[in-house]
């Protein structure tokens, strides 16, 4: 279980906080998405939970223990993949294990196993520049899974990918999360992605305000049915959009009202 209590963050030189009193609890095995406009502080929350950013105030608890530093219990998938170009797919996936001191033979076996899981067993010796964006993010996903984390953190993981690849990878993530019973915190800009993957959606506004929490009551696996045709999907999408529309302050006369 992940608990974020009274998280408060002011960046150096900033006049107002990026996140002010953010609170969230994610149950074990639950998939929660943070959605909100650019600059609302959702990435700040995720980076703090990862341990890449010290909070000004507040605490992050993982299974009741304070967790403000990176740890093998937390795996992260970055938006820009952040793979090392000087390592092969296999070397990248083995990286987290290497840092934990896992013996070479074992970490390579485990890395190969996770590359198989994401369908890249024939690309193990390839370097990132030899792989497509989607393949690279599968390597990124395997790297995070390979350390067998309790908590998976995903920072707009499909934001840099084309629409078709995105849907394919969303299906893959849903399948893997269902199999491994992972606890996941996802940051996204995509309403569809949040609905498709989440058990719960947190709609955020400026300075990390939680505008609303929405439970997603759609049966899984969601890609087996035409989930976009369900009433629940239509209702959720309309609700998230109406909340975001208010936050974004788009001029309806210019952009038109979103569906």
């Amino acid at each position, binding site marked *: 279980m992940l608990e974020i209590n009274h998280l408060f963050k002011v960046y150096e030189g900033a006049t107002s906080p990026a996140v002010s009193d953010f609170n969230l609890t994610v149950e074990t095995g639950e998939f929660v998405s943070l959605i909100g406009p650019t600059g609302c502080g959702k990435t700040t929350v995720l980076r703090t939970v990862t341990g890449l950013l010290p909070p000004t105030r507040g605490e992050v608890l993982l299974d009741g223990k304070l967790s403000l530093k990176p740890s093998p219990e937390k795996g992260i998938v970055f938006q820009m993949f952040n793979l090392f170009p000087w*390592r092969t797919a296999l070397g990248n996936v083995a*990286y987290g294990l290497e*840092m934990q001191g896992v013996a070479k033979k074992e970490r390579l076996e485990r890395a190969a196993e996770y590359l198989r899981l994401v369908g890249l067993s024939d690309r193990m010796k390839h370097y990132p520049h030899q792989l497509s964006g989607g393949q690279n993010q599968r390597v990124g996903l395997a790297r995070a899974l390979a350390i067998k984390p309790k908590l998976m953190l995903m920072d707009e993981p499909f934001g840099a990918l084309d629409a078709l690849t995105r849907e394919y990878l969303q299906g893959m993530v849903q399948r893997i999360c269902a199999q491994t019973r992972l606890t996941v915190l996802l940051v996204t800009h995509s309403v569809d992605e949040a609905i498709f993957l989440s058990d719960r959606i947190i709609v955020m506004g400026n300075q990390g305000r939680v505008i609303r929490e929405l439970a997603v009551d759609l049966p899984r696996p969601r890609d087996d049915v035409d989930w976009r045709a369900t009433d629940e999907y239509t209702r959720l999408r309309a609700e998230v959009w109406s909340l975001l529309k208010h936050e974004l302050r788009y001029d309806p006369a210019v952009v038109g009202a979103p569906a």
Partner: protein
Amino acid sequence: MSVSTETPGTPAATVTLGAWDRMRVHLGRPMVLRLTSLLVVIVLWQLIGAGKPYSVTQPSAIFTAAGHVLFSQVLPAFGSTLKAFGAGFGISAALGVPIGLLMGQSRLAELALRPYVSALYATPRVALIPVVMLWAGLAFKLQLTVAVLFGIFPIILNTYIGVKEVPRNFTDAGIAFNAGRWQIIRTVIIPGSLHYIFAGLRIGIGYAMIGTVVAEIEASVVGIGNLMSLFGQELKVSDMWVPLILLGLFSVLLSVILKWLERWATMPWLRGKLTDDEGSPATMALGAQ
């Protein structure tokens, strides 16, 4: 009307190139072009230098001079130069890379060292030779010190810039996957700045060579630069060219070796060669794996 037919088994008529065409094909090759250009220069020099043994001299005279002085004087002097240059570059690399890494990694080291590095890099280091002479003497210690003074700064600065330029994405990934400070340096900072480090080494190796020879010409009583000064004072122009050509050839060889080394260390991920190992060939090249 006749239709030409080919019987199976009979080879089709091959086009034979004329002598001129064949020569043109060969002339287009880079090596042939280089040799031809060299030949032209030598012939022109031979013609222009006729009757001017004390200024322009001639390739044939240099060749004869080489027979007299190469083994007796030039190579021993070159040995002295090489020793100082090798040690000087070795020290420059061995100190320069860690200092650059330290400056890039530690704010304290950056603030403390950067003014000196920048000032010394900008100062014409030839001006330091009279100062160095006072305590290093006129032989090996002088050559060595000046070689280091010339060679170390480009290595420090390039490494330092390389470290600063390592994308935040890479260090983030290292930190997020639990790398400690040393692990970050070994697995992220060094491979991530390797092309800068190599650029520094390439510039540094040339500068160390320049430094050694300049010290010898300016002040030293040993080495190939000193020998050239001596030949010059005696107006032995052809003799002077022997060490000069040797130096030129040696410098070309050095830069070829370093380029090859750089390719070997950074190629797989820059050009997409596949290797059998998981890790970075770069860190292995540096003996860090």
